[in-house]
């Protein structure tokens, strides 16, 4: 099978937040690189303060005022999005790259009907009107399994349940016919069974439309269910990236290993592995490897030198001194290399 170019390629992305009039710089995203192929689901895993949401906002150019992309590139369909103006990005956002956020009530306008909100992207980007617009909206609502779309679309968001609202948000996201959908913890506020339905829906849609999905989450179970590849973020950096099976079978980075060990597994009463301390404050990152204060297998070197990316032959990349020099490590690509 010919290897096609990735749909989205992020290289050495750096996003900083400048607060207190520039006096304080927070390195929210520190040299993040990953590629997203067509039809693929990439999981972006991390806890609070890991930089995963900022990475997504950087990709679509929706950073808050204090944030700025200071380096790297985001190449989508052959163009670098970091170099585009807001006007140009507006044409891409919602149409070629769609975003689904965590709280559906924040994404939906309580004053407008469902029809109006789902129709909006098709109205502006594809210039549909009248009957074809109505049909398109019904088609989209059916695609996200909303029953009786003809009269549902006249309703308002507050008349629907959380699960349905999240599906409407999904319909809006798909309305423009995107190639990439970024979903930022879309199921966190949903009941467990509703979450399962929603995830199944996303998988079906992906199979039907071939859209590439970036799924941002802190839940490794979702990763196991949904993702083809995984990038684990910590302290603003990707500390491990691997195909999903390799990540679960053979996690290389101590943080990944600890994370996997700390999640309770159904049917097992074994004591959970717990990581000491708490996630770091991005404004005050530890020296060297950001994880070293919590790392159970820390080397003296970890405190002073920040490790680079180490590539392994099974397709994984890990940023850890322990990985260097193992017989599996392939070419060493340090931070200076490219």
């Amino acid at each position: 099978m010919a290897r096609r170019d990735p749909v989205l390629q992020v290289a050495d992305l750096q996003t900083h937040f400048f607060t207190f009039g520039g006096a304080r710089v927070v390195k929210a995203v520190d040299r993040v690189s990953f590629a997203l192929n067509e039809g693929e689901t990439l999981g972006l895993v991390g806890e609070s303060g890991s930089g995963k949401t900022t990475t997504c906002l950087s990709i679509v150019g929706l950073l808050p005022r204090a944030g700025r992309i200071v380096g790297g590139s985001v190449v989508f369909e052959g163009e670098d999005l970091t170099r585009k103006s807001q006007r140009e990005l507006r044409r891409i956002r919602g149409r070629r790259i769609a975003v689904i956020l965590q709280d559906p009530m924040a994404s939906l306008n309580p004053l407008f009907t469902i029809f109006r909100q789902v129709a909006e992207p098709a109205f502006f980007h594809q210039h549909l009107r009248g009957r074809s617009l109505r049909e398109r909206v019904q088609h989209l609502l059916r695609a996200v399994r909303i029953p009786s779309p003809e009269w549902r679309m006249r309703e308002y968001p507050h008349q629907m349940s959380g699960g349905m609202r999240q599906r409407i948000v999904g319909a809006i996201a798909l309305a423009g016919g995107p190639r990439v959908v970024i979903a930022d913890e879309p199921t966190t506020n949903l009941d467990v069974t509703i979450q399962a339905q929603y995830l199944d829906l996303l998988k079906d849609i992906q199979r039907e439309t071939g859209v590439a999905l970036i799924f941002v989450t802190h839940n490794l179970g979702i990763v196991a269910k949904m993702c083809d590849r995984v990038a684990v973020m910590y302290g603003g950096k990707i500390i491990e990236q691997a195909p999903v099976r390799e990540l679960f079978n053979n996690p290389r980075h101590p943080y990944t290993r600890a994370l996997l060990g700390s999640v309770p597994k159904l049917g097992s009463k074994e004591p959970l592995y717990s990581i000491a301390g708490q996630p770091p404050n991005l404004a005050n990152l530890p020296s060297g490897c950001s994880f070293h204060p919590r790392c159970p297998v820390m080397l003296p070197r970890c405190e002073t030198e920040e490790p680079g990316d180490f590539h392994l032959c099974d397709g994984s990349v890990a940023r850890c001194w322990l990985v260097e020099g193992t017989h599996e490590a392939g070419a060493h690509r340090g931070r200076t290399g490219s």
Partner: protein
Amino acid sequence: MAEPVLEVRGLKKHFPVRHGLLGRGKTWVRAVDGVDFAIQPGETLGLIGESGCGKTTTSKLILLQETPTAGSIAFEGRDISGLRGSELMAYRRAVQVVFQDPFSSLSPRMRVEDIIAEPLEIHTDLSRGAIRERVEAVLELVGLPPDVAPLFPHEFSGGQRQRIAIARALATDTRLIVLDEPVSALDVSVRAQIINQLEQLQRTLGVSYLFIGHDLATVAHISHRIAVMYLGKIVESAESDALCARPMHPYTRALFAAALPSHPDDPQPERTIAGEVPSALSLPSGCRFHPRCPAAMPVCSEVEPTLQPRDGGGVVACHLYG
């Protein structure tokens, strides 16, 4: 068998709701509609269910924040309804709660030592020195160094705040702690710390827990027995191992099917149930789960099943099983 710490029988809580044009119509939201369970000393009972199942209302009833419409709650054999004065205080001393949100559980203008000391000041006559000693002892129990006592809550992370909340819950000789989704708002890497801490405290102190949660894996891990709630009733209840080995009620099975895998190669279950939890204002007839049940039979829409003993211990309310 020792006397249960808490025993709930036929507990009901119905909320009146006015509707209609001029508010003339009146219906009832049957938030809790006939619930029975018991918690033994040193044991954890897990209460699991989705929104609208009644688990939060149940906890409010136990904490005397609401009064039951019917049924009884007995603490160490004594009925707690109508408790007054020193008996009420004795109950409050022995039953505490830890809430979900670590950022609003601690009084922002009080120091940690005062927060933890509060139950002691309310219930005991201990001197300031004795209280301070107790506060330091309890801080150590939850894995915090005693010198954090003079600090204010905003200087702590979410996980540490939950520990402080647990410390406060343990300050007096607590017998039962109601834990309402205590780790749901915490970072993943911190959840394990708190769960381990809770389990260890139970082993050391023999305190009982009512653990309310929505994540099956977490609830199953920490609980000895699990009760599954749906629309105000318990549909199945059994020992944690037995339930995980063989979930019987279709709703329990749906919860298990909806639970996320722990490995990408884990067998993906067959399609999960469709639809959503119906509104509590218009309950289905017969078995409340029948509209969504893949195994529904004609009798399910007519007759409400009662809890019957199930294989492997526990009870289940389903016509499939007699």
